[in-house]
C-alpha cells in the first residue's frame, strides 16, 4: 500500500509540475463550455430579413411590427420589388424575405384567406427551415388574434410544445456532449501518454524490475486522472447551471455515478492504447483519431444518429460516449432516474469490464 501511495504521489508531482498541461486540462472544459455556450450556437437569432409590403394596410403593418419585435428577426429594410429581394440575397445581407400580397387586410376580412410568401436562403437548409417555422408561427399567432370572435371555417391548428427545453436552447444538447468529450480527452489520452512516456524515458524498465506489481502501476497511473476528471465534471456542471442556466433536473448522485462509470471506461481505454503503443506520438494519434473524433461524430451530440446510414448507426454503438451522452441527457435534462437509463448503464459497465480485461491482458510484465 505504501508503494501504491508513493506512486500516486509521484504521478501528482508529474501533473502539477507540468504547469502548461495542467492548465490545459483544467482550462479546456471551461473554454469549451464558453465557446459552445456563446459562440458556436446553432440557435437562430437576430436573422436579417427584408419585407416587400405590397399591401401597406393595417394587417401588414401589425405583422411587420410583430416580426420585427421577435428575437429571431431583424428587419433590415423594406424593399419595393422582387428584384430588390434577389439583390439583397445576392449581396448576402439577408436570410429571408417576407412578401405581403396586395389587399392583405381585405382578403383576410372578406375571404378569410390570404397568401403570405416566405422566401428563404436554403443554402443552409437547417437555418432556412428554422426561420420559416418561426415566421410561420408568428403569422399563425397573428391570424388567430386577428380573427378573434369570428367564426372560422374548419381549420386544424397544430400546437407545438418544446418539452424539457421550452426555449430551444442549444446548451441543453452540448453540455452533455462537452462532458463526454472532456472526459474522453483527459482520461483516455492523458493516461495513454503518461504510461508511454515512461516507456520512452526508460523508467518503465526500472519499474518492471521492481517488486511493484504491474497492475498497481496501472491503477496508480489512473487515480490522479480520475480525480482530475471529477474536478472537470464539477466545473462543467457549475458552469452550465450558473452561467448557461441549464438546470440539473435529475439526481445529482446518479449523474455523478454515471460520470465515474464513464471516466473509468475512458481510463481503461487509455490503458489499452498505452499497452499497445511505444511512443507518445502514436498514443496521441490513436487517441485523437481513434477515440476523440468518433466521440464528436458518432455520439449523437453534433449529428443526430437517426439520420446516419445504418452501418454508421451500428458503428456508433461501439462508441462509449454515445451511451454516456444519452445517459447525461436523460438524467440531467429530462430528470430521468436509473429506471430510464439502466440499459445504457449496463452497456457502459459491460464496455468497462471488457476494456479493463483487455488492458490487463495486453499489459506486459516484460518488455516487447
Amino acid at each position, binding site marked *: 500500500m505504501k508503494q501504491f501511495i508513493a506512486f500516486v504521489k509521484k504521478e501528482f*508531482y508529474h501533473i502539477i509540475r507540468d504547469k502548461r498541461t495542467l492548465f490545459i486540462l483544467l482550462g479546456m472544459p471551461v473554454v469549451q463550455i464558453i465557446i459552445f455556450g456563446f459562440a458556436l450556437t446553432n440557435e437562430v437569432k437576430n436573422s436579417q430579413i427584408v419585407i416587400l409590403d405590397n399591401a401597406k394596410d393595417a394587417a401588414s403593418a401589425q405583422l411587420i411590427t410583430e416580426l420585427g419585435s421577435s428575437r429571431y428577426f431583424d428587419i433590415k429594410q423594406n424593399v419595393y420589388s422582387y428584384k430588390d429581394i434577389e439583390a439583397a440575397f445576392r449581396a448576402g445581407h439577408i436570410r429571408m424575405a417576407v412578401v405581403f400580397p396586395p389587399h392583405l387586410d381585405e382578403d383576410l376580412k372578406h375571404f378569410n384567406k390570404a397568401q403570405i410568401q416566405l422566401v428563404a436562403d436554403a443554402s443552409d437548409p437547417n437555418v432556412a427551415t428554422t426561420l420559416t417555422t418561426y415566421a410561420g408561427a408568428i403569422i399563425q399567432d397573428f391570424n388567430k388574434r386577428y380573427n378573434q370572435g369570428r367564426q372560422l371555417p374548419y381549420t386544424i391548428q397544430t400546437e407545438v410544445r418544446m418539452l424539457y427545453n421550452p426555449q430551444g436552447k442549444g446548451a441543453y444538447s452540448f453540455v452533455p456532449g462537452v462532458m463526454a468529450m472532456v472526459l474522453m480527452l483527459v482520461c483516455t489520452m492523458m493516461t495513454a501518454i503518461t504510461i508511454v512516456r515512461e516507456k520512452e524515458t*526508460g523508467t518503465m524498465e526500472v519499474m518492471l524490475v521492481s517488486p511493484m506489481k504491474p497492475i498497481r502501476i496501472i491503477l496508480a497511473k489512473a487515480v490522479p486522472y480520475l480525480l482530475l476528471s471529477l474536478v472537470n465534471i464539477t466545473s462543467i456542471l457549475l458552469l452550465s447551471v450558473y452561467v448557461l442556466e441549464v438546470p440539473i433536473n435529475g439526481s445529482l448522485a446518479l449523474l455523478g455515478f454515471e460520470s465515474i462509470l464513464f471516466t473509468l471506461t475512458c481510463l481503461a481505454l487509455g490503458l489499452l492504447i498505452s499497452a499497445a503503443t511505444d511512443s507518445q506520438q502514436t498514443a496521441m494519434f490513436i487517441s485523437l483519431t481513434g477515440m476523440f473524433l468518433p466521440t464528436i461524430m458518432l455520439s449523437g451530440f453534433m449529428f443526430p444518429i437517426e439520420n446516419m446510414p445504418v452501418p454508421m448507426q451500428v458503428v456508433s454503438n461501439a462508441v462509449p460516449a454515445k451511451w454516456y451522452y444519452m445517459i447525461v441527457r436523460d438524467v440531467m435534462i429530462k430528470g430521468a432516474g436509473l429506471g430510464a437509463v439502466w440499459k445504457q448503464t449496463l452497456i457502459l459497465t459491460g464496455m468497462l469490464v471488457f476494456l479493463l480485461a483487455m488492458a490487463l491482458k495486453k499489459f506486459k510484465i516484460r518488455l516487447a
Partner: protein
Amino acid sequence: MGAVTVDNIVKFYGKKEARVTALQGLSFDVQKGELFGLIGPDGAGKTSLFRILTTLLLADAGTASVDGFDVVKDYKAIRNRVGYMPGRFSLYQDLSVRENLEFFATIFNTTIEENYELVKDIYSQIEPFRDRKAGKLSGGMKQKLALSCALIHRPSVLFLDEPTTGVDAVSRKEFWEMLAHLKQQGITILVSTPYMDEAARCDRVALMQEGKIMSVNTPAGIVNEFGRPLLAVKNTNMLQLLQAMKSCEGVEDAYPFGEYHHVVLKPGGEAAVKTILEQMKMPYEQHPVTPDVEDCFMALMRNKDGQ
C-alpha cells in the same frame, strides 16, 4: 551456485523472414561478490543479455539464473533482489534528487534511512543538490543519482548497462572508483561498457562481439591468451609506416594505437620489422609492449573472421 549463471542463451529479434540473432548461445557464470564486465561495441548484445537477466525479456533458448532464481519461473523473486540501471539514466526528470531517491526506496519496500550506509559515499556527493530537479543535473551527477536509486534497496546483484557511455573521462574514473567501493560491500556487480580500457577495472570480463562471447577471463588472463609478441613502433611518417608494416612478411597484423602503431609479430618476425624501419631512413622508435584488452579484442575479432 554462482550469483549469475547463463547457459546457452539465444535471442532473436524480428519475424522469421528478417530474423536477426542478437545472442547466439551465450554461457558464463558470475561468482558472488564479483565485479564482472561485459565488454563490447554497440550491437554486441550487451543490453539484450541484461534485459534477459533482469527478467525484462524472454530468451528464445537456453536458461539463466540470478541469485539462484530462474529468470523465467522466478521472475518475481529476482525483481525483489536485483538493482538495475538501464542505458539511459532512468530517472524522473521532473522530480528532485531527494524525491527520486525516496520514490525508488518506497517502490522497493524500504526507506532511505534503512540503507543509507550503502549509498552514503555516492549520495553525499549529490546531497547538496537534493532539491534540484533530476533533469537539471549534469551527466556525472545524474549517473550518481541513478546509481544511488539502483542501490537503495541493497540489491544482491547490481546490473549496470553502459553506465559510462557519453560520460567524460573524469566522471568515468570516479564511477569506477565507486564500483570498486561497492564491491567491497559484497554486492555482485555486472557492468557493460564499450570502452576497452575499463576492462582492467573488473575482476573478470567477457569480451562480446556480434552476439557471441569471444572470451571470458580475468583481465590478466585475457592478456596472457594473446600469446604473441607485440611491438610498438613509430617514426615521422605514421601513415607510410602503417602501410609498410601491414605488407611486411614477419607481421601478422598492424594497426594504429595511440601515438604508436602496434605490430603483432609472427614467430621470428622482429628482424623483418627492423629491416623495414631502417629502410625508411627516418628516426624511429620501437619497443616490445604488453598487449592490453583492446589488442586482445582485435586479435579475437580477426581470429573469428579468419575462421
